[in-house]
């Protein structure tokens, strides 16, 4: 049964009427038009749908909308502030770290989550952290470079 749930997404509150077990991804995309989070597998295996919930990267295709209500949610649409890109977005742009770019939202959000808990990750730590994110175009080396570059930018200029 549909139930009124209030979501806090990118600093805005959204009341939605949805069955409690609907995955957050479909509410974001189909109800709220926040289509930056992608459907890639619906099984938590590819990372294209990753959002931050309470600052931690989560597969939104696996999170029931009811479980997402308690904490603030950040999607790819919420990273740009006043026309200024988040350092991770800027680093991906600078490194040309995408080809078809369908995985890019998930890669960027996951990396933002990583840098919040580990501001200076090694290559091995980045690899470990992004192991659950699939890039079929094979842009992995540039993605790793971009995350390291973003870490440097944050260290020098702040978030």
């Amino acid at each position, binding site marked *: 049964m549909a139930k009124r749930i209030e979501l806090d997404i990118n600093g805005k509150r959204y009341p939605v009427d949805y069955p409690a077990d609907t995955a957050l991804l479909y509410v974001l995309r189909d109800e709220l038009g926040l289509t930056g989070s992608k459907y890639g597998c619906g*099984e938590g295996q590819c990372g294209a749908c990753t959002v931050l919930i309470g600052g931690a990267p989560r597969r939104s295709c696996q999170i029931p909308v009811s479980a997402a209500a308690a904490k603030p949610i950040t999607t790819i649409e919420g990273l740009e502030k006043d026309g200024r890109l988040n350092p991770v977005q800027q680093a991906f*742009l600078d490194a040309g770290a995408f080809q078809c*770019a369908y995985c890019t939202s998930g890669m960027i959000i996951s990396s933002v989550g990583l840098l919040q808990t580990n501001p200076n990750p090694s290559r091995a730590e980045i*690899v470990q952290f992004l*192991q659950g994110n699939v890039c079929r175009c094979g842009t992995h080396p540039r993605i790793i470079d971009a995350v390291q570059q973003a870490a440097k930018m944050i260290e020098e200029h702040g978030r």
Partner: protein
Amino acid sequence: MSEPSGKFVLEPERYEFAAAPMHQFELARRDFFKLLGAGIAVFAIAKDATAEQETAPGHRSFHNEEWPKDINAWLHIGEDGTVTGFTGKAEIGQNARTELAQTIADELRVPFESVRMVMADTALTPFDAGTFGSRTTPTITPQLRRVSAAARDILVEAAAKNWNVAPERLVAADARVSDPASGRSLKYAELARGKTLAQNLPAEDPVTPAPQWTIAGRAIPKVDGRAFVTGRHQYTPDLRPAGMLYGKVLRPPSFGATLTAYDDSAAKAMTGVFVVRDGEFVGAAAPSADEAQSALDAIHAQWKEVPQIANKEIFSYLKQNAAAKTDDRFRKQRGSVEEGLASAAHRVDATYTVAYIAHAPLEPRAAVAQWADGKLTVWTGTQRPFANRDELADIFHLSESDVRVIVPDTGSAYGGKHTSDAAIEAARLARAAGRPVKVVWTREEEFTWAYFRPAGVIEVKSGIASDGTLTAWDFHNYHSGASGIDTPYVVLNQRTEYHPVPLILRSGSYRGLAATANHFARETHMDALTRAARMDPLDFRLKNLSDPRLRAVMEAAAKSFGWPHKKTQERQGFGLACGYEKGSYVATFAEVVVDKSSDAVRVARMVEAFECGAIVNPDGLRNQVVGAMIQGLGGALFEAVEFENGRIKNPHFASYRVPRFRDVPEIETILLDRKDIPSAGAGETPIMAVAPAIGNAIFDATGIRLNNLPMVPNGLRSA
């Protein structure tokens, strides 16, 4: 339906062209006349070259690549100075949009930022057979260069007329025509104002040679990059036209199953749900994807299944069911293989196999279809918008001008998005619902109902003289395809044959086609011959190669890799492979380390040298080369589609393993820029030599020769 064309010379084994669409609809007679009556097409401009092209007979045959000659079909200079280029090619992550805009800016002498590309929209762009075969760079960049040069000449002549001076003394640069003698200048925008640039393309208009390029040849970042890192770019699954419903399709339990009993009364009783049954097609559209799925779940359907073979028995099946006659187009016979084998000092015979693999593009097949006044518009991620349009027109009994297919920049394809399945499904449901319908395939549907890179068996017999000269080469490919089947090595006695086999699983193009399978067999076999001759693998290849471009990539990669390489640890090995295809040349070197306790194979390092003539955008090219290397690593080591009884047994990312971050080695690429050679495509060839280079390195590390792709799906012990 588009018939398979025997005259299609580009890549004949792209046999999914012959595959019928998955669904056939029987339009009711009254629908047929309704649609016809409402759907008379009127071309906007009678002189429009695009329209002429599309009404010309025979344009559907793929061998016919007649380009429209009218300049408006290709390039437009607006009164505000905006330049728009038109091409039927699609942007699928290969970065064509950027390189084509660069080409126009370079030749027209305008800033890169002032050029935009309209791509892959059947209502707006010239006919195009499809975005495949590494054809965009070699065919479209020269065309855009020629129209840009012609447009520049028109602008210069217009200025000359204005000032009443000879055009030869004028200079076009930075979106202006200037007269150095008088100091006068006019912007292109001013010259274009109030004019119509409908001039035919001169046949022989000189274009700027590569050494003088200023904007082409540079590492310009992907256009619209900001839209991708902010999530603003809308792929097909992101579109939501007003009133749109979500469509789902009821899939049979196995390939080829047919409906024997059907009851959709419970589904039809659901509020807001449209259920369609048309032949074997059953689908539902509803206000949400969940509701559409619930409707399908409520349908009672019984199916008759047909027995089918499993992947375990595929290779013997392929050998037994090969056509008695090989395909003439690919047969090559020179000298006497029998005599060459008899005179050899060393002989190596071996059989190689390649498994079915899946493209698994991260954006699944998807389409949004909308009907209005009997006309159909479909947004879909496809490599063949015009073929999709033709199929939709055939299936819904429309004229082609009443169907418009638009391709939003797409979340990759790799040869996997040639068919129009999702477009047909969305259009059928939308017609029933009278509202726009979106169909997005699930990952499981992707892995099951798309098509695959075909499996194959390759048999090789060969001989060498005692000095390492090849004396005989006998090469037979069963089923997987003929791309890259010819050996680049000099052999006096050789026989090459491609043996077609009727399809088992729905099969089609995959990045590089069969070149990957044929290079795996050939380059693995060459390594085995090297060992028989006790020669260095690089020296052995160079001894038998005459092509200077292939030698050049080999030597460049060898230098960067440090060949011959000394082993610094146990169970470490080095291997190499090379080849050429579609006008570009590749050499790949690999280092592997096999774990002593687990026997896990780790690719530690790959170095690849690549040459495709004059480089249009080295940044985009490097992305394509590295991407092909990583994708190739998946097929080399662990990717394989498993099937039994008409079912795919591993239709998920959890069970079908694709390369992930931990699999990615240290990668180095060397791009040789040959400004004296026309630019070739680069999307496919860089994948071809990856698997044999890795396999040869595994042999070097362990002494174990792996002749089957994937080589180590469960580590070395299972191989």
